[in-house]
């Protein structure tokens, strides 16, 4: 169904090259938008990884998981533990974070994938809630409960000590052989990882494996009749997407070595669903776009407060400025989630394919106008159906 046209490997390479240029020059072209600071760009990258991983599961197989935040949380906790016990180097943290959440996904997937549809959603939700509740209560020795897991001066850091690196008075920061995990260098670490993950994701999309996942989405029964056992494929997709989430989680810990249980809450799982839907489920680049847009507007909107609003509306007469500011204030600052919810609803109602569908609709509108040749209605409808099933 999705993207049946054949793309040559050369085209893919070009695609990757363009994406790399776009991502790596972000600090420059994001300047006019006021988003060119490393903290935010790191978030773009991290949630991009999270979302493309989620898209491998939800976009390709159609299995709606409501528990992916659990993997993000596991990744974060593992990374912080790796910082504490082994080394402040990010490499072991990322490796352990990814692998451990992969194992975690294996266990959860083994159970959850026995069912499909809404039952699958609820099973994953149940597991995520379990992990969240446990992280808050019994697992406090591992997760440090409500305070969140933090680095301390007296951590073991075995590898660092063996290498002769001693912590000085301030808390050490995560680094990649001396390159700091925060600031612009941190952004480039995240960006590099994102590009690598994206390349793997692209290969998965184009591979026969990816095709089989799509076949599962379009008709699982038929897949069975053709002689495929779908479970292993689903399982692999689930574990891969869990590992992506784990990687994103450990990167979150790299940018800020503090892991809290709220990262595992089901509203956090809702967020990645939201990002993916907004960008375009099952499309290649959509989830990245979604992550960028949501994180960007979250950042912009949350910064507003009443004074800023009053200033913004100061051109209005006084009696009007206050009510207008009050109404707008509902949607920004603290109320940012309200806007998010509204936008999300509108997207699901009118544009289930997300922004990517919107773009392809616009593109079609323009090309159709240029062609300006009369077509029969039935033909057009058919074309529309094919197109709305999803494009790149």
């Amino acid at each position: 169904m999705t993207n049946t046209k054949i793309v040559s490997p050369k085209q893919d390479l070009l695609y990757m090259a363009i994406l790399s240029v776009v991502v790596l020059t972000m600090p420059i072209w994001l300047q006019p938008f006021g988003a060119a600071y490393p903290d935010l760009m790191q978030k773009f990258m991290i949630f991009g990884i999270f979302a493309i991983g989620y898209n491998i599961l939800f976009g390709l197989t159609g299995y709606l998981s409501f528990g992916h935040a659990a993997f993000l949380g596991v990744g974060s906790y593992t990374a912080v533990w790796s910082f504490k016990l082994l080394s402040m180097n990010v490499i072991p943290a990322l490796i352990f974070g990814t692998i451990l959440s992969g194992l975690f996904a294996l266990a959860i997937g083994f159970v959850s994938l026995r069912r499909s549809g809404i039952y699958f959603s609820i099973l994953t939700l149940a597991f995520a809630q379990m992990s969240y509740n446990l992280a808050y209560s019994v697992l406090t020795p591992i997760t440090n409960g409500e305070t969140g897991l933090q680095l301390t001066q007296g951590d073991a850091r075995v590898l660092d000590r063996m290498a002769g690196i001693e912590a000085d008075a301030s808390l050490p920061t995560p680094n990649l052989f001396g390159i700091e995990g925060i600031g612009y260098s941190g952004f480039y670490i995240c960006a590099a990882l994102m590009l690598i993950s994206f390349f793997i994701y692209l290969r998965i999309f184009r591979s026969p494996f990816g095709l089989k996942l799509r076949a599962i989405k379009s008709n699982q029964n038929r897949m069975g009749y053709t002689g495929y056992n779908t479970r292993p494929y689903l399982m692999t997709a689930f574990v891969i997407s869990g590992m992506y989430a784990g990687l994103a989680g450990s990167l979150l810990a790299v940018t800020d070595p503090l892991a809290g249980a709220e990262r595992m809450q089901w509203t956090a799982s809702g967020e990645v669903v939201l990002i993916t839907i907004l960008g375009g489920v099952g499309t290649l680049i959509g989830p990245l776009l979604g992550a960028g847009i949501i994180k960007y507007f979250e950042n912009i909107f949350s910064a507003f407060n009443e004074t800023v609003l009053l200033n913004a509306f100061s051109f209005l007469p006084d009696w009007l400025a206050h009510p207008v500011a009050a109404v707008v204030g509902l949607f920004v600052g603290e109320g940012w989630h309200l806007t998010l919810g509204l936008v999300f609803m509108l997207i699901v109602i009118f544009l289930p394919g997300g922004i990517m569908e919107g773009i392809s609709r616009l593109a079609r509108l323009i090309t159709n106008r240029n062609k300006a040749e009369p077509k029969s209605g039935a033909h057009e409808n058919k074309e529309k159906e094919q197109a709305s099933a999803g494009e790149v």
Partner: protein
Amino acid sequence: MDAIFLQILNGLDKGGAYALIALGLTLVFGTLGVVNFAHGAIFMMGAFCAVTLEKILTLSVRVKDESVTFFDAYKETPYLEVWFGETGKAIIDWSVPLSIILAIPVMLLIGIVMERSLIRYFYKRPHAEQILVTFGLAIVLQELVKSFFGANPIPQGAPDIVAGSAAIGAVFGLGESVVYPWWRLIYLAFSLLTIGLVFSFLHFTTYGMVVRAGMADRETVELLGINIERRFTIVFGIAAVVAGLAGVMYTPVLPPDYHLGMDFLVLSFVVVVVGGMGSLPGAVLAGFLLGILQSFSSMTEVKDIFPGIDQIIIYLVAVVILLTRPRGLMGRRGVMES
């Protein structure tokens, strides 16, 4: 023995809330075929009906405090008290039960508006999209409530006469020391009554019979010339009222805040799945069952053996049930099989 008895009561009580929410969820699912993630938000809005009424009743004016004689002191006194004296005070005291009267029409209206303006466009769309759009709606509702009422829980008092505890132990021959809060007993009775009302509406009225027929075979009922869609809309409204009332009555037990709905939603979905998608008795049974299980697992004796079991028992049960009895406890064949 005493502890077990109290835990059963506790569980029934909590289970009452689960059962009421799950009942509404199942009703909506069974009739409209819609998975409604905003149902928890409806529960929360019911609770905030009580908060609103209390706020209205206690609208205050500054009155001179006569008891202070040597300087001018003022105190905030609700209008009702100024106008009606003791009667006014009593009305304020009874604000939570009175909210029921307010909540019924309000929730019915909210339910019907929600169904007509949003849900009905989603009958034919995939369950995933239904989940997503109602999830979005839940976020919107919860954020609206947050922006009007703030993020902090707002405690609501039960009427003074039932604020204390009942010596329930004496009734069952367990000794005077076994006591249980009156209001929670009332909540239990209330949830049983509401469940009874819903079931008798569905089973003993012609309207309910038609609704049940529509649940079983919508097309045939439509062929008989009955506007089943309108009835289903009403059923959605009723589900909203049931959840709303559950919310109103729950306020003295748990001070409502804006994410109350989300907390209960996840649990109620688990309840629905355990009971069997689309089965009303299943939802009620599973609600009470899970409530009791949860309260037993929070006993210290149990927690000593399985640490943390109280946090996860419900989800654990759900996982086991889904894997061993895929249709849930009382699920019917053919409902949500694919």
